[in-house]
């Protein structure tokens, strides 16, 4: 029991995490090697905002927790006017939101990140961590998908790239293998004349997890019969972040009118397979997919129409 100036405090120890060993490798190579050698008993962490909660609740029981923050350029945000944006895996969401390059060229990323939890949690939470956690409700995943993000992964065999379109396997499950560490996400320059929107429905205006989230990004495209393409991503309505391809096809093929947008919204609803949970019923979620897709596409359409 701690003592200060001869006074003994009656103090109940603060509840904490189960036992594990904290490992801080000196390089990415060492980190990948350690994680691969201890497959099934070691887990990398960035902000820890999901890892520590899962461990505290007893869902995860890893022997080793590996801090991979700040290794080899993972703490940088860089923008190149020809190749696009790179966000290092250790960059926290508040830094992402404050980045002038993000604000100017990729405001959708900042908009989506701003809906995540609270300011003090975003001091820890990272964009790449949000993706790798692979929650179907991940607020920033839709933005990363419609902006055509690519993850850069360091594994035991060196660096490789993973497109987000094939990254998610199931709730909390990705194609990452033991030893893999996501080091950054890169985004190409967005399409000319684009507009984008993330609409999140929570139980309160800010701070909650998504009951349904709809991300839409539209841009003029002469190659599309309608003259436009709209990319869509849906959160919290399927086992993985969902791209309603049928809805996208409708918006690319038919002249965009109120009726076309309604038809696409219906297609997005039909593609979603939500569950009932404490935040909302499956039926409610499906209806909200339709309403919010209509709303998001309409808002984007009003900005991009010529």
């Amino acid at each position, binding site marked *: 029991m701690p003592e200060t100036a001869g006074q003994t405090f009656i103090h109940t120890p603060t509840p904490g995490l189960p036992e594990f060993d*904290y490992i801080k490798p000196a390089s990415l190579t060492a980190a990948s090697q350690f994680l691969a050698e201890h497959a099934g008993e070691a887990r990398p962490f960035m902000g820890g905002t999901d890892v520590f909660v899962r461990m505290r609740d007893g869902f995860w029981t890893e022997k080793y927790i590996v801090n991979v923050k700040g290794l080899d350029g993972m703490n940088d945000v860089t923008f190149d006017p020809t190749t696009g944006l790179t966000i290092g895996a250790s960059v926290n969401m508040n830094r992402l939101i404050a980045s002038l390059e993000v604000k100017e060229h990729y405001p959708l990323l900042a908009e989506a990140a701003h809906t995540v*939890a*609270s*300011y*003090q*949690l975003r001091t820890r939470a990272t964009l790449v961590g949000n993706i790798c956690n692979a929650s179907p409700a991940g607020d920033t995943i839709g933005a990363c998908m419609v902006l055509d993000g690519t993850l850069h992964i360091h594994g035991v065999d060196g660096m490789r790239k993973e497109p987000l379109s094939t990254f998610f396997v199931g709730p909390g499950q990705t194609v990452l293998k033991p030893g893999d560490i996501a080091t950054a996400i890169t985004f190409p320059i967005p399409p000319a004349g684009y507009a984008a929107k993330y609409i999140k429905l929570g139980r309160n205006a800010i*701070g909650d997890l998504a009951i349904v989230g709809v991300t839409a990004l539209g841009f003029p495209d002469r190659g599309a019969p309608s003259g436009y393409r709209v990319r869509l991503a849906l959160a919290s309505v399927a086992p993985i972040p969902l791209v309603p391809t049928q809805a996208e096809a409708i918006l690319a093929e038919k002249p965009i009118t109120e009726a076309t947008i309604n038809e696409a919204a219906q297609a997005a609803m039909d593609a979603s397979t939500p569950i009932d949970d404490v935040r909302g019923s499956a039926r409610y979620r499906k209806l909200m997919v339709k309403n919010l897709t209509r709303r998001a596409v309409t808002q984007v359409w009003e900005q991009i129409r010529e």
Partner: protein
Amino acid sequence: MAFHRITLTVNGEIELVDVPSNMTLLQLLRDKLVLTGTKNGCAAGECGACTVILDGEPVNSCMVLAAECDGAQVITVEGLAHDGTLDPVQETIIEQGGVQCGFCTPGILISARALLDRNVDPSDYEIRDALVGNLCRCTGYLRIIDAVREAASRAS
């Protein structure tokens, strides 16, 4: 379980401590350094009662490992007052009646201080947004928001 020797600065005092791998910054502050102003609420990054300023930014100390804090600068609610003078956010939260049971107050004060450090003239929306991660079950928040607004106006 491995221990780690770390040095960190807490409220201006340099501390050299040995911490087990699974110790959170919150546990280090409360159980080892006896800085019990920082509260343990949910231990899951939801309630904000454990908010401290870590290297200039507010953070849920339950979501940080102590072992990660080697070389860090930490400010807790005990570090807000200087030479017996309360921080303006402490003065105004008392005057406005923004404290009832008081359990959330240390986290609220830290979040408010951090807000005013990065934004000297926040709008009401910005104040609410900065305090989203600090749950209060007593006051209904309005007097807390009044207090932060008043603290900002005094500083400017």
